[in-house]
């Protein structure tokens, strides 16, 4: 899966499942503030990443994710790691 495909898929589920306005999604935008995430929403983010990309996010990993770009990069790394295993 290319990074562009990963970004496309992430943006699609954020719009569809998390009901964020597509125009508000930007690489430098703050993920938590843009999506209005609370502690319960992070649980749902774990579920949707698992169903889309086949890996489980551990809660601590979210600490280093502040922007959409951080999020894309993190998922990209995990998908690449999974492909090389």
């Amino acid at each position: 899966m290319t990074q562009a495909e990963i970004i496309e898929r992430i943006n699609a589920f954020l719009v569809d499942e998390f009901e964020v306005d597509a125009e508000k999604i930007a690489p430098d935008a703050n993920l938590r503030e843009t999506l209005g995430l609370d502690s319960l929403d992070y649980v749902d983010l774990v579920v949707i990443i698992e169903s889309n990309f086949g890996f489980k996010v551990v809660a601590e990993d979210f600490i280093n994710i502040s922007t959409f770009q951080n999020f894309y990069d993190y998922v990209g790394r995990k998908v690449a790691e999974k492909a090389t295993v």
Partner: protein
Amino acid sequence: MHNRVVITGLGIWSCLGTSLDEVTKSLKDGKSGIGMDMERKEWGYRSGLTGIVAKPELKGILDRRARIGLSEEAEYAYMATLEAMKNAKMDMSWVEKNEVGILYGNDSSAKAVSEAIDTIRIKKDTTLLGSGSIFQSMNCTVTMNLSTIFKLKGINFTISAACASGSHSIGLGYLMIKWGLQKHIICGGAQEVNPFAFGSFDGLSAFSIRENDPTKASRPFDKDRDGLIPSGGAATLILESYESAMERGAPILAEVVGYGFSSNGEHISNSNVDGQVRSLRMALNDAGLTDKDIDYINAHATSTPGGDLAEATAIDTVFGDSKPLVSSTKSMTGHECWMAGASEIVYSILMMQNNFVAPNINFENPDEASAKLNIAKTTTEKNIDVFLSNSFGFGGTNSSLIIKKIK
């Protein structure tokens, strides 16, 4: 000094329709809401008969956080409550400034629980259930979610009393307002409709197996009845003090004047005439009425051989002289279980408002007990000033409510 307790809003989501107008028409036409669910046959159910209930589309009405906590029955309850609050003229800005409570009947959330356990077993990971699972799985899923969505600040809990849950919710709401503890309470009952919910009930051979003719299968009081048909949805009633309703200029639809209850103190699933008679007499006594004051009885009668026999005997014991019109709307709806005690008050108020008694469809031949009752076989024009509604549940819990027209 006790408060008078009135009903100012109704909402319904059932196999007879998803609005008050649609349900009124179904009741008047004697239209059955029963069909077949072939998935149940694949699951090994003895009977695939069920009430056919539409699924609400909530995307666009509720945001994601509100939606994902709603179990199937809570979705029905939300739709019914939205309708009830609208016609009670209770908008969100008013609700936020006043103490509105919720007492709702519900006694299972089997689909949510089963799906969660399946996920844990397959994934070996509880996080992957998502954040909504717990709010769907608990028995109080309806009150927990609706109190949050509607920003309620009053009494807030669920009544689990088997097939009398909805009726007791109205009875308890009535008592709280009557005694001055609350002014406005959302009451009702909800029932999930899916193969997860009814397997254990099907296992008791309690369901009709007249699968070749679904609309004829529910036949309360008929001598050829062979069991009930599970059904569901949700029904909501807004109860409030007469004083509050007058102050708000709310439409007053009817008055709750009597609540009777009892426990059989006997078998876990068999009906008991004595327990039902005590509930009926307590309701009449609470209302300060006699048997002759009741124009119509909406019977609990579910179409099981034993249950209908006991209720016919109990009604004849108390109403043998006055013989009011009796019908079981379960002949059309099937048994709406946790919801039934509330939905049947909604159905009966719709009859009261439109001057008719809905038929006990499929009542062709009485048995020895039902022959003594004045059962409405067809839609009957009738001015109803006062009606009584029975609900009885496993464990021997009985509830009878008396509702009066406001003149």
